[in-house]
């Protein structure tokens, strides 16, 4: 078995709403080996998106450690964590979250603005990413000129353009029709099998979860046994 690239150990997350404390994750431990395609499932409020956010470094645990590719991200300061995210995480959102004022090309180029690549290298990376998702012919299109499925494919291109260590996807097919959802899932499978990307995906959809190697269920903040 491959070495765990994601190591979540004894992680607890509690949200505070005014004076109320709402425990979302309780003492979670999970390892994700390099190259795995993991699906996190569970009902609303089970804590699956929170766990995904913690793995992606966009939220912090109250206790426990999260080590990604050898870095304990729970100890990193905000600026260091931002830098780490730019290098190691590709995030795919449910609602694509493309910037409407930028073309598909410019949206995909966004993460590269934080790198020291030359203009030519950036262009090569962006063109390659858009080529992988099959949108080479839509580079100059704005999000409003694309279908939902195409927007999500641009979002995936944006997630892979920096060649991140892991790809995290939060309900990537949740806002799509079945045909588009299948295309996206096929693309995710390809990223995993062909490009050996480690993927952690949150989904409600059992059909989507079927594409993953491993499915883990969360319920009321607890990770159920495999």
């Amino acid at each position, binding site marked *: 078995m491959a070495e765990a690239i994601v190591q979540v150990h004894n992680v607890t997350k509690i949200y505070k709403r005014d004076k109320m404390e709402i425990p979302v994750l309780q003492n979670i431990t999970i390892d994700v080996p390099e190259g795995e395609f993991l699906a996190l499932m569970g009902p609303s409020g089970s804590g699956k998106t929170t766990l995904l956010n913690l793995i992606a470094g966009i939220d912090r645990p109250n206790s426990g450690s999260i080590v990604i590719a050898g870095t304990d991200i729970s100890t990193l300061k905000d600026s260091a964590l*931002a830098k780490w995210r730019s290098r190691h995480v590709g995030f795919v959102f449910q609602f694509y979250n493309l910037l409407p004022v930028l073309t598909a090309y410019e949206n995909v180029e966004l993460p590269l603005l934080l790198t020291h690549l030359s203009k030519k290298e950036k262009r090569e990376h962006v063109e390659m990413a858009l080529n992988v998702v099959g949108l080479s012919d839509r580079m100059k299109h704005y999000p409003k000129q694309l279908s939902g499925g195409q927007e999500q494919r641009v979002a995936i291109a944006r997630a892979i353009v920096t060649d991140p260590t892991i790809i995290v996807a939060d309900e990537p097919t949740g806002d799509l029709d079945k045909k588009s959802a299948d295309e996206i899932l096929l693309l995710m499978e390809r990223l995993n099998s062909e490009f050996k990307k480690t993927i952690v995906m949150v989904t409600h959809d059992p059909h989507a979860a079927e594409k993953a190697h491993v499915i883990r269920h969360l319920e009321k903040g607890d990770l159920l046994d495999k």
Partner: protein
Amino acid sequence: MRILKLVSKNLLRHKLRTFLTVLGLAFAVFAFGFLRTIVTAWYSGVESSSTSRLITRHAVSFIYPLPLSYRDQIGKIPGVSSVSYAYWFQGVYKDNTFDNFFPRFAIDAENFLEMYPEFVIPFDQLETFKKERNSCIVGKKIMEKYSWKIGDVIPIDGDIFPGKWEFVIRGIYRGKDRTTDETQMFFQWSYLEEQLKQRTPYRSGQVGWYTIKIANANDAATVSENVDALFVNSSAKTKTETEKAFQQGFVSLSSAILTSMEVISYVIIGIILLVLANTIIMSARERIREYAVLKTLGFTSGHIIGLVAGESLIIAAIGGCLGIAFTFPMAAAVASGFPTMFPVFNVELSTIVLAMTFSLLVGVLASIFPAVRAARIKIVDGLRQIG
């Protein structure tokens, strides 16, 4: 693509909103610049005053004359290089409207104009002026306004000095620089004196004030005291002060208006701040989710602050530049429309710098609250915002 390009694309997201904000800023900066120009124009006489010239006038008021006999006594005071004198003539040209008003002075033809190097007069014209008793020298702007030429006769109806007066134009003076008043008319005091002796003999032998040139500007206080001490027991006591203080005395008559204008100009800056802050706050609030996405991609809080502040600064800079640009044609229109009311009406470099500085300062201030709020928002909270 650079961050700046993202800022510029965000600016064009709501074109009408951005356009109206820029326009609002431009008008506000224009109003600020125009009011400041009026204030500086009002003070131009003070600012262009020489530090080596003193004015001696009647201690009670400027309107009371002084005896001509003071001239020689003042000239003997240590530190005094030369003494000249002038008399406010006033009179009416054409009609009594402000449009046809311009300052008219009777001056000592021998040396008054030499004491004012800022009035540039061709040598031959000055010599002719000195030789002809009823000649006059007129400022370039007034010559152009009335399309006069040398040799023309200016008829004036006297009011302070009643009667019909005629002056032949023998010279035109130009200002040494753009701060010099080119709307005045000078004629020989000796012509006035000659006429007064015939018409109202009891008013002869008097002058309005003395202009004293001192060798060292640092001696101004001492020389002033010595001049006034000389006439302290006479029937016409004097008050001597620097030309700047003398001019300031005139300006202070309208100080309340000028202070109001200055206050209004700063209130306008406050209004600009509110207008821009409102726009930037709206824009930033609409984009909280996008900022959260950018942070997810690895952009830092500093980047987010840069995006918000950059947008604010660009709007402020464009509005400021447009506002300043609007000020120039307006100032030119006022200068040509009211040459005697504002003989010097220039948009000063200090006004441009002040207007631009305030514009950029407003750009920074307007963005502080929305930028900090956008930078501080947690990613998970930002992503929950409905975009």
